[in-house]
């Protein structure tokens, strides 16, 4: 392996760097390239599409790979546009690569550009991949992942994030289990259950913690987004046909091992009363797969590393603050997609395109398109807010924890240790709680337990969750795993 100094000035500087190849990143890349900018698109995936358009490897793709993908034709059109821009040299795609460190302009003497330090998603860097990329403008489209709450037994094999179960189906054509329960909250549980059932799993229940009546207050908003309603209805119809029970006000409150003790065997259900209190039900379901999701957590490590301002959104996620042009509080840094607030692929597409136009300094040239995009963003954001209000994390979720329940899976920190730290050891904030218990300090750096840890820290002080609780769990250095050798080269 040849040792190459990073930060080499020989690397050409791009006009725009886009990080993330999901809907927002693709739309941003296509827009900036269309407006004559030289764009580099850096994506962790081996193939473009992000989580939303994750698909089987094209080298072995079957004719039905697009089945079950929403808006697949939108992806194909964007992909084709970017392919043409790559042919002319207007766009460069760096695949299977993560950004582990961001240097803002001016941090290195005389460097007027953003410098992104890259590492391969898998394995050791090879000599062909650039170690750094420089660009005048930066657009971050890092996407999101399933939000999780600890549940007794949730670390047993066979318990997975709902998005992971779907990723195995969409990306690998692999069924994660034969007899499944899908649980948590939010409309995303529906497609996961539907795809499991369509691929041959028996889905014994979808347990939705919220009540459908929550949507009642938001009917005017739903009426303005008929496509979302149609989507939910089509999943509902498919699930009804597959005889999958959809149970609202219901949670998986305990996960039990099978006779081997090595994997999931059953779940115990609980009911949430209208007062939010948990009542144990006598009901238990035999399953070999539990798919869990409580909405989504935007990936904010790059946003934090770049120094952009963050805030708490309606769904209690930490999100980036952006203006009417998707520009963050840091000049020259644009953010689009789930990182500005969880809202789905259509919203991400609109935000990404607007960010691409803005980063290309072309909003004054594209006035009518910009107006249309802003209208679309307002309409879809209103729907996202309605969705988040209708599917909140159950406020009293910690009632289902036992002293032995792991809060942090990586560092194996049990709820008892967290309680002790918040009550006896004066961990009055998430940062102290993290330092005292090691919650969020393991391999995943708080990606999985961050929300729970921050919420428990706030609850220990009998106060509402705030941005200060979430921020220490969203910061990471490095922003992606790297080999020690790469650090030493630095």
């Amino acid at each position: 392996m040849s040792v190459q100094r990073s930060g080499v000035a020989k690397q050409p500087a791009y006009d725009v760097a886009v990080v993330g190849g999901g809907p927002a990143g693709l739309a941003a890349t296509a827009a900036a390239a269309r407006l004559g900018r030289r764009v580099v698109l850096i994506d962790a995936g081996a193939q473009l599409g992000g989580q939303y358009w994750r698909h089987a490897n094209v080298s072995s793709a079957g004719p039905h790979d697009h089945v079950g993908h929403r808006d697949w034709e939108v992806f194909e059109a964007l992909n084709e546009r970017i392919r043409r821009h790559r042919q002319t040299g207007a766009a460069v795609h760096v695949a299977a690569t993560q950004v582990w460190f961001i240097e803002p302009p001016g941090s290195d003497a005389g460097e007027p550009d953003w410098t992104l330090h890259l590492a391969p998603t898998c394995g050791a860097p090879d000599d062909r991949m650039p170690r750094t990329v420089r660009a005048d403008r930066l657009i971050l489209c890092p996407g999101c992942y399933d939000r999780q709450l600890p549940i007794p037994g949730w670390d047993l094999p066979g318990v997975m994030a709902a998005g992971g179960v779907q990723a195995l189906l969409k990306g690998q054509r692999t069924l994660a289990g034969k007899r499944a329960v899908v649980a948590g909250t939010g409309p995303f549980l529906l497609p996961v259950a539907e795809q499991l059932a369509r691929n041959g799993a028996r889905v014994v229940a979808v347990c939705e913690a919220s009540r459908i009546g929550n949507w009642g207050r938001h009917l005017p908003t739903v009426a303005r987004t008929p496509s979302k309603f149609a989507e939910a209805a089509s999943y509902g119809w498919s699930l009804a046909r597959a005889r999958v029970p959809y149970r609202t006000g219901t949670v998986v409150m305990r996960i039990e091992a099978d006779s081997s003790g090595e994997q999931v065997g059953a779940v115990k259900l609980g009911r949430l009363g209208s007062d939010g209190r948990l009542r144990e039900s006598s009901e238990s379901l035999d399953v070999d797969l539990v798919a869990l999701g409580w909405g989504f957590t935007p990936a904010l490590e790059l946003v934090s590393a770049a120094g952009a301002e963050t805030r708490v959104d309606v769904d209690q996620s930490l999100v980036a603050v952006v203006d009417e042009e998707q520009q963050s509080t840091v000049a020259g840094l644009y953010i689009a997609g789930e990182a500005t607030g969880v809202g789905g692929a259509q919203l991400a597409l609109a935000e990404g395109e607007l960010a691409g136009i803005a980063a290309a300094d072309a909003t004054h040239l594209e006035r009518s398109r910009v107006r249309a995009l802003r209208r679309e963003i307002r309409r879809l954001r209103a729907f996202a807010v309605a969705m988040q209000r209708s599917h909140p994390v159950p406020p009293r979720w910690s009632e289902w924890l036992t002293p032995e329940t792991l809060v942090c899976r990586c560092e194996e920190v049990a709820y008892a240790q967290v309680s002790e730290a918040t009550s006896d050891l004066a961990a009055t904030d998430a940062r102290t709680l993290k330092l005292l218990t090691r919650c969020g300090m393991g391999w995943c750096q708080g990606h999985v337990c961050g929300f729970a840890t921050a919420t428990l820290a706030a609850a220990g002080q009998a106060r509402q969750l705030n941005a200060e609780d979430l921020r220490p769990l969203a910061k990471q250095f490095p922003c992606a795993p790297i080999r020690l050798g790469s650090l030493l080269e630095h």
Partner: protein
Amino acid sequence: MVPEVPVPGVPATIHLTLDGRELTARAGQSVGAALTEAGIRSWRRTRHGGRPRGLFCGIGICYDCLITADGVPNLRACLLPASDGMQLTSTGSELTPTTDGGVA
């Protein structure tokens, strides 16, 4: 599942091993998917509690699925493409039961 379509130049079936046990994967599949299809649900044990771990987030976020491949430790099985002749090693103690009740 979706019927396979042979692609010229790409082996339809990849052969790999976990602790010497033979596994197969389809071209383009991840190690995590190949292990799941073989009914293997965990390939690592935690440091403190010795708890079994396998796929959880499935998209490279949680690091539960770390595995050793051809001697390189701590690779995310959910992201790692399976390759022909790859030798996977589980970490921790004994192997884990399979979903069909057997023992791997």
